[in-house]
Every structure is written in structure tokens, then in C-alpha cells.
């Protein structure tokens, strides 16, 4: 079984972020980038599926990112993925979510797959759109928000996490699954994995390789654009309740919450 995990490079959650006023884009050059934390769960799940399925299964990492994104690919390979493909091109800049999903689906068609795993969302743009949109482009079922995955007899069944509990959803392969953070505990890259990562193939994909239609990505190919941006206004100081007696303190907090109609 050929499992492909799509992963995104995102700014370190702790880093201060700034927008470039000229391009209205996030200034990504100045900040430390990391592997989208949600995608670590997808990688872990892919590795577990591979380990259970046996020898002829492989895990391929696919990312669309600037060249620097190779660092997050190495991390994924260090965790145990077999190989990777990376789509990098200046012309991709400005692509919105739908354009991104189009390009990723083209890349997936190019490299081939039986099963696609994704995170539920990125920590920077947080759209949660790419997985479903990619599946739509590929014409395969999308099983989203999986907190458990079972594969048997050419079918996949998931427990789809909801606020109330979970739904059981199943579909034939090939299919795309997005996984939630409750599905597993991602492993750390092992030291042997780290040493082995540099020997694994990271295939560079070009826009030509994947047969991308120039009208469907970049600024020109995007149907949405950023009109303007405003920094989040600084939060006020907040109310501090200082009470010697914890019961008295709790009472004051409760009164505050009732006044705010929170409880």
C-alpha cells in the first residue's frame, strides 16, 4: 500500500509574526519554521498503518513549500517515512487555499497513492479546507476528523470525532483521511532515523512535472485575495482577584462570571 502524507511548513507557534505591508503576506523569511504540529499525527498514523500492513507498504511525504521547507521533510523522514516529494516554485506564491489544494492534488496524481493522510488543520492559516478540497479534485472519498482508523479488505473505516462523540464512517480505498490530535502520540525522530534521513530520497517536483495549469495557482489563479490586515488589538489587563481565603476568592470569581453571563 502506498501511503502519502501531506505536510505543511508553518511558523513556530511561539514566534512573533509580522505581515509584509507591501505584499500583505506573512513575512515567513524572518521566522523559525516547524512541521505543522497537526501533521505529526498524520505521519505517526501512516507509520503505524505501514507497520501493521507489512513489508511492501511505503510512506511518502508530500509538501508544497519554499526550499527551506526541506527541514520539516527531514524531520518526517527521521520519524520513519520512506521518501518524500517537494513542490517548490516562486510562482506558487500568493496561491490561496483552493489553489493550494489544486496543486497538491496535481502532485498527488503525479506520485500516485492508495491512501492519503493529512492533518485536520494548519496552525497558521487554520482553514481545514485543504483535505476535503484535495479529495474532491482527486474524486476520492474524504474521511475527515478521524480519531481512529481501521483498514481491512480494501476499505477504510474511521471514527469521526464530533462534539457529541463519534460517527463511524467507511469508504473504499483509495481515500483521503484527515486525523485529529486524539488519534495517537507522535513519536520523536529516532537518532538512527535522523542519520538515515539524509540517505532517503527527497524528490523535487516542478510545476511542469505535475502538469499544473498556470491559470489555477499564484496570485492570478486565486479567487480570494487579502484586502487589508489589522493587527489583533492588545488584550486589556484583565481582572485579578486576590483573596486570602480561597473560598472567598472562588465566590468572587463566580460573581464575576455570573455578571458576564458566562455561567
Amino acid at each position: 500500500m502506498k501511503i502519502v502524507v501531506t505536510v505543511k511548513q508553518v511558523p513556530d507557534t511561539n514566534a512573533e509574526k509580522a505581515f509584509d505591508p507591501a505584499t500583505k503576506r506573512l513575512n515567513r523569511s524572518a521566522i523559525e519554521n516547524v512541521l505543522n504540529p497537526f501533521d505529526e499525527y498524520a505521519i505517526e498514523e501512516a507509520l503505524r498503518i505501514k507497520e501493521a500492513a507489512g513489508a511492501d507498504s511505503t510512506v511518502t511525504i508530500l509538501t508544497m513549500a519554499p526550499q527551506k521547507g526541506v527541514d520539516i521533510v527531514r524531520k518526517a523522514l527521521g520519524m520513519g517515512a520512506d521518501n518524500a516529494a517537494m513542490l517548490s516554485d516562486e510562482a506558487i506564491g500568493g496561491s490561496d487555499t483552493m489553489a493550494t489544494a489544486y496543486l497538491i492534488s496535481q502532485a498527488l496524481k503525479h506520485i500516485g497513492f492508495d491512501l492519503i493522510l493529512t492533518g485536520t488543520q494548519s496552525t497558521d492559516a487554520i482553514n481545514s479546507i485543504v483535505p476535503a478540497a484535495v479529495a474532491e479534485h482527486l474524486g476520492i472519498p474524504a474521511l475527515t476528523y478521524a480519531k481512529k482508523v481501521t483498514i481491512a479488505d480494501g476499505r477504510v473505516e474511521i471514527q469521526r470525532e464530533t462534539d457529541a462523540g463519534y460517527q463511524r464512517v467507511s469508504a473504499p480505498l483509495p481515500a483521503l483521511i484527515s486525523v485529529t490530535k486524539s488519534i495517537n502520540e507522535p513519536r520523536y525522530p529516532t537518532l538512527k532515523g535522523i542519520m538515515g534521513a539524509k540517505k532517503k530520497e527527497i524528490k523535487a517536483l516542478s510545476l511542469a512535472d505535475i502538469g499544473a495549469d498556470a491559470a489555477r495557482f499564484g496570485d492570478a489563479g486565486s479567487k480570494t485575495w487579502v484586502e487589508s490586515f489589522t493587527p489583533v488589538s492588545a488584550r486589556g489587563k484583565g481582572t485579578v482577584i486576590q483573596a486570602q481565603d480561597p473560598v472567598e476568592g472562588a465566590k468572587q470569581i463566580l460573581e464575576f462570571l455570573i455578571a458576564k453571563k458566562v455561567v
Partner: protein
Amino acid sequence: MAAVAQAPQSLNFELPEDLKLLKSTIREFVEKELWPAAAQVEDSDEIPAAILDKMSEMGLFGLPFAEEYGGAGMGELGYCVALEELGRASAAFSNLLGAHCSIGAMALHLDGSKELKDRFMPQLCAGDKLACFALSEPNAGSDAANIQTAARRDGDLFVLNGVKHYITSGDIADFASVFAVTDRSLGARGGITAFWVDLNAPGITRGPNDKKMGLSGSHTCELIFQDAQVPADRVIGKIGAGFLTAMKTLDMGRLSLGAGCVGTSQLMLEKAIAHAKDRVQFGKPIARQQAVQFMLADMATEIYAARNMVYNGAWKADRAERFTIEAAMVKRYCSDMAIRVVDRALQIHGGMGFMKETGIERVYRDARILAIYEGTNEIQRMIIAEELLK
């Protein structure tokens, strides 16, 4: 900033890709797993078993050792990169790993026969078995050549008698590199032999754990040998060459000890900067006081010097160049540096630095040993001078 001119030959200070990934992996591990456990390690004086398991799974116990023996093959540079990051966690972790990799198993790795290494290195690298290093004795600390523990040949066996003390991980280790006298008339040169000893064998007793100033979660104790039988095929290297093995091993340990000092100091600097910006006295952050600024400037400068010493020493070690003088300089400078940096970080925190909750007082207590073990800083100066004057 643009380069001044194209350098004719480039001196490259950038870590290779795999070691960068190693560094970020260990940092993430420290932040997610080891920091949250700091208070627990301090209070319980134990490393949680779940963390030990994760350390084994990652392959930390085989970090510097060759791949053919189950190690990760990251060399001394890789080991120093990892220890630098681990220096940001409770000292218990680097002490456990240090006793095992830097010195305990290192002696076997450096001078053991292929048969011995084939047999024992894989389990040591996997973290299934833990090693320690037993050189010091009550009457032979700095003067290690004066050890009294004796190994008497008896056919296919050596019979050991004597006491080793202050042995890190002596309470939990499965194996030890033990240094004992095989021929008293020959002294250190020719008279001391290194043995690979199974600590669970009859004739070996472990003393109670010592009560220490710091290093909660890392224990030292006596190892007492009373007619302990060690098979003759467990000699590490040549009979009579044990003192050399001990010295070579300690050279390695000194570099990574320095690396740990750099990581600890870097963390202390970061905490001091954050506090200095935050703490307001006399109507402005104390970071605006030049006296505080100068402390921060000195801390950062010394860390910069120390880090470059460590990396340069490790680079030499991996090129199989002689690095005895560098190792001694690294150990001496980095440990004194760490003690100074922690002291200043505590000073910048004022009364809060003395309180348990900031965790700085723990680092302050834990740092003091750095100038003492693996050869006191006086002994390091003797080694440096000896190299200079020979």
C-alpha cells in the same frame, strides 16, 4: 549583512543537516518531556521510568557509538550537540547519560576487543543495559594513579578486592568499567588494568546512595568488591594499559561535560534576560540598569567562547586528532563559566532566584559539581600545563 570579501577558503561553522535535526529533536524532547518532569525529579530523586523508556526508544544511549555496534554513529560532535540541549533539562538526565555514554561504555568502546564490543555494545546502545565508570576511591580521587583496588590473576579469572566510591549510577548500572591494580610494582604505567564488570555478579555490593548537595535524580554510591570474580576475557584492552584507557575516556567525557555547561548557561541567560526586562524597580525595568546589562553582556560573551571551544574540541576528536589539552581547557573553562553564569542569573533574579519555584537555585546547586568531577579544575590546569611544558 554582506560578506566583506569572498573568503579564499571557507571555515564552515554550520552544523551538518543531520545534527541540526538532532538539535531540534532533543530541544523538543527537553521542552515537552523533561521540563515538565523537573519538579518531580527534584522531589522524588528519581527519573520517571516512562522517560527512560522514551530515551531508549530515541536511541540516546547509543548516540556517540558506531552503527556496527547498534549506536547512532553521531560521533563526538553529535554527542556534544545533544548534551548541549540536554544541559537545559534537570542535571539528572545528563548525568545518567554521561556516566553511561561519556565514560562507562566509552571505555569499552575505545579500547575493548571486537568480541567484547560485539557482545555488550548492542545492549548498551539500545539502553537495555546501563553502564557506569568506576575509577575513584576514598584514597584516590585527584591522584587516580594511586588506586588500591586489586585484581589478582587466578587461572582464567581475575579476583577483585577493594572499594570504589562516588560512582554515578552505581546503584542502577548493570555494568561498570572498573580500574584495578594488577601489578603494584609497575604503578600507573603498566600496573593498572581496566575490566568490564557485571555488577550483579557475586562478590559485589552496592553501598547506600550518598546524600548530596544537588543532582537530584542522579545517585552516587560505593561499589564494594570482595573476592569478586571477573573472567579474564573481560579485560578492556591490554593488561596493564588501564590507566591510559581511563585517561583517554575522560578526555572524551570532558568535551561533552563542557557542552552540557553551554546549554545550562544559555538557558540561564535566557531566563535572566526575560526577568531583567520584566522586573521593574525604581520605575523602570532592571534591564535598563547598566550594572545588570554588563552582567548579561559578560554571560553572553563567555557562553559564546565556551560554545566555540566545545565544538572545536569535538571536531578535533572526530578527526582522530589528539585533543588532550583542548579537552582539559574545555572542561576547566566551561564548568567555571557555567558556575559564574548561574550565579549571575540568580543575582539578577534577586530574592526570587533564591526561591525554589524559579528553579534557578536548583541549577545553582547542580552546577557546583562541574568544577569537581571528571577531574577537578585544578587537575585540568595541571594537565594543560603538563602539555605546555613537555
